């Protein structure tokens, strides 16, 4: 009986253990906090996502410290990841934006400097117009572009990234030129749209849901294969007969990277803690509210996905940005 009680106590200690000492793996990883570099400003969507995950990760036995190292479209922070010791104590948030500038050879980094650990989110992109825009539908907007070749403005946060690619693909769909207006961040694009300074923008639902629901912005089209759960009435570009993926599938995503040469066991420990945290109710609810998707692929599947997207971006960029 007493032994039985001991067992219960032991089980309790094991269950509560992660709070104090961190879970033990085959190699006792982690014995201390893991530094998670977010190469974007505090308060941005990647940062908020990380800070929501942080307490859940701790419960899963992976204590992390979030460090914001912004600048250079994420290349500065990811540069620190690339040059860190591959012991699992330094990881960073890779995104397709950083991937895009690496793929175009604009940052002194290479994809093979990283070990890809797990995909964290897929962010769909949408075409939005001001709430008082005369263009109620995607078809109307495309017609408007055709009637005013080379004069319609489309704003994006940053340049040479997926937002930019999709802005160009919209113009390609209309078979006309357009004016690309890059801004330093998504919030500025929202402000300029609401002030009717520009005619359309390519943004994430998480940046625009509030304004869309308040009627200050209107979503016209979704740049992916399927419609969004949060915006079921908004058609995809394919629904309207416009192919925005003429060079292969490209998708805006965020994933966890470590330095190249990370021990596979350590990688799997981190990946399973993240997978558990990301599939927790709390995080899924957050994802649903903010209109991004959670699809935690790992290992070879992730490597293949990143390689494919990276190649597609390089291909598109070569075709698209030359013309700009």
């Amino acid at each position: 009986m007493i032994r039985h009680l001991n067992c219960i106590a032991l089980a309790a200690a094991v269950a509560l253990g992660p709070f104090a000492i961190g879970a033990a793996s085959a190699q006792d990883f982690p014995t201390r906090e893991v530094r998670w570099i977010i190469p974007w400003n505090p308060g941005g969507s990647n940062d908020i996502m990380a800070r929501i995950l942080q307490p859940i990760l701790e419960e899963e036995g992976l204590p992390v410290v979030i460090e914001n190292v912004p600048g250079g479209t994420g290349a500065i922070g990811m540069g620190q990841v690339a040059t860190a010791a591959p012991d699992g104590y330094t990881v960073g948030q890779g995104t397709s934006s950083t991937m895009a500038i690496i793929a175009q050879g604009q940052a002194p980094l290479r994809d093979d400097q990283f070990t890809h650990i797990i995909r964290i989110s897929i962010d769909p992109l949408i075409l939005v117009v001001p709430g008082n825009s005369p263009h109620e539908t995607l078809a109307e907007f495309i017609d408007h572009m055709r009637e005013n070749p080379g004069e319609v403005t489309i704003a994006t946060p940053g340049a040479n990234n997926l937002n930019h690619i999709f802005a160009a693909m919209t113009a390609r769909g209309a078979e006309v030129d357009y004016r690309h207006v890059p801004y330093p961040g998504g919030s500025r694009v929202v402000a300029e749209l609401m002030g009717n300074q520009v005619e359309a923008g390519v943004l994430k639902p998480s940046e625009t849901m509030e304004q869309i629901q308040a009627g200050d912005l209107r979503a016209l089209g979704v740049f992916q294969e399927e419609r969004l759960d949060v915006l079921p009435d908004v058609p995809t570009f394919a629904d309207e007969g416009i192919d925005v993926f003429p060079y292969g599938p490209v998708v805006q995503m965020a994933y966890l990277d470590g330095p190249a040469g990370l021990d596979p066991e350590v990688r799997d420990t981190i990946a399973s803690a993240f997978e558990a945290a990301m599939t927790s109710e709390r995080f899924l609810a957050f994802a649903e509210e903010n209109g991004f998707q959670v699809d935690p692929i790992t290992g070879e599947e992730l490597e293949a996905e990143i390689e494919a997207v990276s190649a597609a971006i390089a291909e598109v960029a070569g075709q698209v940005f030359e013309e700009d």
Partner: protein
Amino acid sequence: MENLGLLGDAIFFELSNPLILALTLFGVVVGFTFGATPGLTATMGVALFVPLTFPLPADYAISMMIALYCGSMAGGAIPAILLNIPGTPSAVVTTIDGYPMARNGLAVRAYGWALISSVMGGLVAWVALVTIAPALARLALRLGPAEYAAVALLGMTIIATIIPGKLSKGLLAAAIGVGLSVVGLDQITGQGRWTFDTLALMRGIDIMPALIGLLVIPELLKSIFEKQGHASAPKSLKGMLPPIREWLGQLVNTLRSAAIGVATGIVPALGGSVGSLIAYDQARRFDRNRKQYGKGAPGGVVASEAANNGVTGGALIPLLTLGIPGDTVTAMLLGGLMIHGLQPGPRLFETSGDIVWNIMASVMFANLFIIVVGLIGFRFFVRVLDVPRHLLTPALFVLAVVGTYSLANQWFDVVIMLGLGTFGFAAMMAGIPVYPMVIGVILGPLLESELRRALVISGGDWTTFLTRPVSATILALTLAALVLPPVIRAIARRRGGLVPQVPKEYQE
């Protein structure tokens, strides 16, 4: 009326909640300390302490975050006045008159002016926030890249003309500042400029390392060579608050500067330093003692501080009513609010009205606490003047290095800071002022990228700057600021020394 009732409820709720008041006070103290310590910044204070609020219930956490934000902006005046080192970018203009006042033995009074103006600026912004916020925020969105570029140009013109010394050297310094801001990724094309294919330079020269390097380091180097140190510590703190008569004399200046601050705060991405520059320029124009400006005029301190605290409150307006943060600090606040399940945006008032009114009440309490914290805190901060220079200089140097590193955890920032510091000292020796350089670094990217953006939107048509009424007005003001003073002087000379309407003793 209904709103007043809701606001009253929120104020009463906070009053009956000692823990909220204590957290607000704590936030103000921490923010104030970060703002008042050269090398540590408001951004850093918010970044460090906002995560600490995450475990708290939303009401409590938000009160503390708001207090941190308001407090940090008010603290920046202390080192600006005592050491000629602005604690925050927006306190740059405060040094122009605050430090000369301190050197004239008026450190305590200068701070009194700064404190009272900060609080007034904060309260004017609060009134704007409570009453006309949504309408104002929508109005501000009508300004686009063309207007931003015009305001940046106006700001640069003002700084080149208000700094004592030759206009040509001021313009040269501003040009150097703009040149520095070119390094890094081009905002429009995303291509690297002057990066030499290195990661470190891709990031460009950030505002804070440049600010600390150009303003702190030359000041420290100068103090090594100078016989007389900074202003000596005042023996008593009596006479901090100016007499009511004098204060009434500055009331118009205070209100005008606060209004300018609120207006610039509401426009996303303009930033605090433009607000205080424009307010300072206006104050100088209207003040009878305008010759004193730059030599220790209270009006200069009042204008700068009322404006930069007006900006603080003003920046909350687009954040809360539209969900659009104006700068990095409000962007962090946005993140903080989102983590507590609040989504700032057009619907915030409907979905979480009670919390919005709590935020409003917190802004008010934070501003009231700033008076207390300022009055008491100054006693401690002023002691910095008692510290012998052979201890103070190295201590400030260490703070500058540590502070710069911790901005983004980049050693290269420290290299930039020290490099620019040495350069700034050399420039100072050559009689080239460093302030316009700093303003050039801050406003250069705004001017360049907004100008190009406006041209992209207009399809390369330069007349967009003249056909948009607001942009045209701002450009006309800029031209007037440069051309009118010499023209008026020339006319006056021709008429035999008589200047219409302006008595002789008020001329420059």
